[in-house]
């Protein structure tokens, strides 16, 4: 069987899910024997590659860059997995949604709560524009599987990857589906 081409990406999240990925410890060595990790924040790869088997997406969709990244991910991945609560539910990243649109969020963060030099960051081409609201990944693209948790425990991530590598449907049940 061909080696699994695995990618991970990080949108509007804290990278805690990726830290939990590293928490798989020595199994990462086994993983490297079974899969090629072709794109991830752990490596310096600029462009999302083609023909990816599985992509784990951490984080909610909060700005234009995330949206473009997601389009690339969906176009070039056979399976997309929502990786962690922000991707699955919006979670902490989406806590700005009750404030309404992007503008009141920026004003609240950079003007009202600023202690020095209050200004809204605006550098075209450098600072990506916020979306009006934050979305879970499945509201933007088709998602095949979900790994909940904030962050998902390493064993939960490992279970899903093992099933995918074995060519089986990963199925999480009971407390393995716990949000938070």
């Amino acid at each position, binding site marked *: 069987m061909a080696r699994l081409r695995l990618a991970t990406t990080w949108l509007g999240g804290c990278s805690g899910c990726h830290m939990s990925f590293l928490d798989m410890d020595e199994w990462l060595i086994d993983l490297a024997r079974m899969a090629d990790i072709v794109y991830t924040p752990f490596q310096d790869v600029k462009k999302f590659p083609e023909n990816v088997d599985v992509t784990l997406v951490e984080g909610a969709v909060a700005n234009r860059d995330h949206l473009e990244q997601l389009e690339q991910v969906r176009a070039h991945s056979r399976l997309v997995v*929502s990786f962690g*609560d922000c991707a*699955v*539910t*919006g*979670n*902490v990243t*989406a*806590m700005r*949604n*009750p*404030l*309404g649109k992007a503008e009141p969020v920026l004003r609240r963060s950079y003007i009202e709560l600023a202690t020095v030099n209050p200004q809204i960051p605006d550098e075209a081409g450098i600072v990506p524009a916020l979306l009006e*609201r934050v979305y*879970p990944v*499945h*509201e933007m693209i088709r*998602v095949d599987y*979900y790994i*909940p948790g*904030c962050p998902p425990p390493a064993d939960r991530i490992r279970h899903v990857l093992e099933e995918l590598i074995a060519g089986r449907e990963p199925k*999480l*049940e*009971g*407390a*393995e*589906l*716990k*949000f*938070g």
Partner: protein
Amino acid sequence: MATQTLTIDGKLVTARPEDTILSASKDAGIDIPTLCYLDGLSAHGGCRLCMVEVGSQNRLLPACTTPVREDMNVSTSTPRLVEYRRMIVALLLAERNHVCSVCVANGHCELQSMAYALGVTHVRFEYLSPELPVDVSHDRYGMDHNRCILCTRCVRACDQIEGAHTLDVMGRGVNSRIVADMNQPWGDSVTCTSCGKCVQACPTGALFRQGSTVAEMEKDRTMLQFLVTAREKKQWLV
């Protein structure tokens, strides 16, 4: 009246005439999911999680408020019911801001555990993300409307067990809100006895002890049944 005999999930069950489908099922070891129901309080029939199929009638009935009848044939977990229950929980999660990871009740929340018990992988409805206040005007307790599912356990505990009736429901539908007295800050309430029964009854992190941080708010949801048994039967059963 004589004992009633009915069938629940293919199992022949005998029940007392005053039993509901829920209590008869529980006695028979058949678990029906509930959220608004709590032992010790009157049944409310609001959350609709305990809906069951009875006989050949197409209309679903809430197990917590439906009395048993002779020869009833009840199904408690058909694929249709399981699908509806998942939908109900997903709708509750979408209606307000249930951010489990930063909630005082994380790990001790009945909405959270119900979601995973039913196999809710994600919420396919759009989150409403309403802007809702947190009332921390009370000396001991707080009320976070973001986490409230309007089960009314707190309202019933306050009225039926404590007899204060400080809490009630204001508004309609999705705009309903738990209020203290005449919709005033909880801390200004003249009727609240600060007994905390509402906090213990609350299934989520909507009512909490002041000072609780993430995942610290453990509740004793058997407290009300304990009080009722003590009062009515003079039995102090722990």
